[in-house]
């Protein structure tokens, strides 16, 4: 066979390169082995498990109040949402009625947490795309204001441990309402800033449009959920489709994208932040005085035997708690359905065929929290 000399000269060879575990753009301790042909990715093998602490197993040795703290340590960017799944599961199993005020406060805090988590995303994502500094620092500035509020309420900036089966650990401070309004104003300005900084920015668009697209059917097959799924055009939002708390009583839109590419995943999140602000404003109107814990709550909570799966819409998707109880004050088995783990499955499909530089962007667009993936 007479080969084309031109092709022979440029014959390429597949190469394996390691990204992570200590890579600044892997959002935690995460390792990808990329097969590359020149600059094009031909294979992706993600390695997870570096952050595995056995949170599920640990929770089996904890009573229901102690377990709340461990939920914080799985989903550390949306702790309120993680705690919520857990306490809702326990409450349903034990048949506890939660006072109204506690539910509204929970809703406000969860949506505020969604804001802070999405700010974290826009910042980190901006960095991945290459707008280093500006987007990151701007969104962290807004997140800082939110964390200050959380600290004033719960006493901690990250590990709140504030929800309890039955309600809240303690009452919110007196100036809660005025502080939330203040924080919302700054968050709205922050959303405007991020919008102005990124959404129409030509460089940003060139890096994100058409990159890492995944079709709705594939996304469903991989079990994706949350904004990453909605970006592909599937209008699934557990707040609307499997309601919990008082979400049926507030108005909000379920944001969806069309192309399912990296840009859509970013844009869905940005628009979702506006919806969160809307929800919080409605909650603030409905918030009335009242107790924050049920009148009769045993000192040590025990659940009847049974099992339950409770899921909520966390900022990254469906955060579910599967709890098996054989009676007593602790779970017999606890399984955490991690949104990020399922979303991460689709990484391979998304990345193959794109450039190495885009792999970082695609990974960033899934918005993973490794502590939640590994648990």
């Amino acid at each position, binding site marked *: 066979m007479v080969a084309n000399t031109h092709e022979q000269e440029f014959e390429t060879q597949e190469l394996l390169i390691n990204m992570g575990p200590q890579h600044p753009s892997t959002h935690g301790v995460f390792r990808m082995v990329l097969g590359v042909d020149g600059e094009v990715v031909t294979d992706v093998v993600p390695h997870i498990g570096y952050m595995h602490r056995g949170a599920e197993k640990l929770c089996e040795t904890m009573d229901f*109040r102690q377990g709340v*703290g461990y939920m914080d340590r799985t989903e550390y960017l949306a702790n309120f949402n993680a705690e919520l799944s857990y306490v809702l599961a326990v409450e349903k199993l034990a048949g506890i009625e939660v006072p109204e005020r506690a539910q509204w406060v929970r809703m406000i805090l969860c949506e505020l947490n969604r804001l802070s988590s999405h700010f974290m995303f826009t910042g980190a994502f901006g960095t991945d795309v290459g707008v280093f500094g500006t987007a990151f620092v701007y969104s962290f*500035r807004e997140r800082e204001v939110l964390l200050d509020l959380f600290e004033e309420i*719960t*006493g901690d900036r990250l*590990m709140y441990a504030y929800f309890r089966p039955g309600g809240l650990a*303690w009452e919110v401070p007196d100036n809660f309402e005025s502080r939330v309004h203040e924080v919302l104003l700054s968050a709205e300005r922050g959303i405007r800033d991020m919008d*102005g900084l990124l959404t129409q920015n030509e460089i940003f668009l060139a890096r994100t449009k058409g990159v890492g697209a995944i079709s709705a059917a594939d996304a469903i097959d991989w079990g994706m959920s949350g904004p990453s799924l909605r970006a592909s055009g599937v209008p699934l939002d557990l707040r609307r489709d499997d309601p919990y708390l008082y979400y049926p009583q507030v108005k909000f839109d379920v944001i969806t994208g069309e192309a399912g590419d990296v840009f859509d995943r970013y844009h869905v999140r940005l628009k979702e932040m506006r919806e969160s602000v809307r929800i919080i404003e409605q909650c603030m109107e409905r918030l009335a005085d009242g107790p924050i814990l049920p009148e009769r709550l045993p000192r040590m909570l025990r659940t009847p035997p049974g099992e339950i799966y409770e899921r909520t819409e966390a900022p990254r998707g469906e955060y579910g708690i599967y709890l098996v109880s054989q009676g007593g004050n602790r779970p017999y088995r606890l399984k955490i359905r991690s949104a990020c783990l399922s979303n991460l499955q689709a990484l391979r499909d998304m990345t193959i065929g794109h450039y190495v530089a885009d792999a970082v962007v695609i990974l960033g667009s899934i918005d993973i929290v490794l502590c939640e993936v590994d648990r």
Partner: protein
Amino acid sequence: MRGIVRAMATTLGTFVRGPVTREYPERHRPIPQRDRAFPLLLWDFDTDEPFCTGCHACERACPVECMTVLMKDNPAHTSLGGTSKRRKIIDKFWIDYARCMRCNICVEVCNFDAIAMNNTWSGHEISVYDRADLVMDLPQLLAQHKAGAIDEWVAP
């Protein structure tokens, strides 16, 4: 082009806003009253002894088992000619700050309001060369409140 101009305008717009960053450690921001650093014990100035009776409730409720409590008969109890109403009192108390996950449960379960989370900067700025130095004993745990250097907050 339009998008870049808009982004630049956003950047320029922030020139008039103050920063949220602070020059730590030269300057400390005020921290909220509910701030939770690590747990410490409170001192009862009326009878000049700790509030803690050594009832083990916190020790049993701690998720990470970082507390060790030993109780003794209170030598200052009224039956022994003292002035205190506490029949039992704390003898030895250790909290391993290196293991504590600052969950506030010990404060919640205490029936005597004897323990509180440190809400001052000194509670956060603990750094040692040896982990064993993070195991705080009774005098260390009591020192700050005894010196009046804390305005404690215990959830009602």
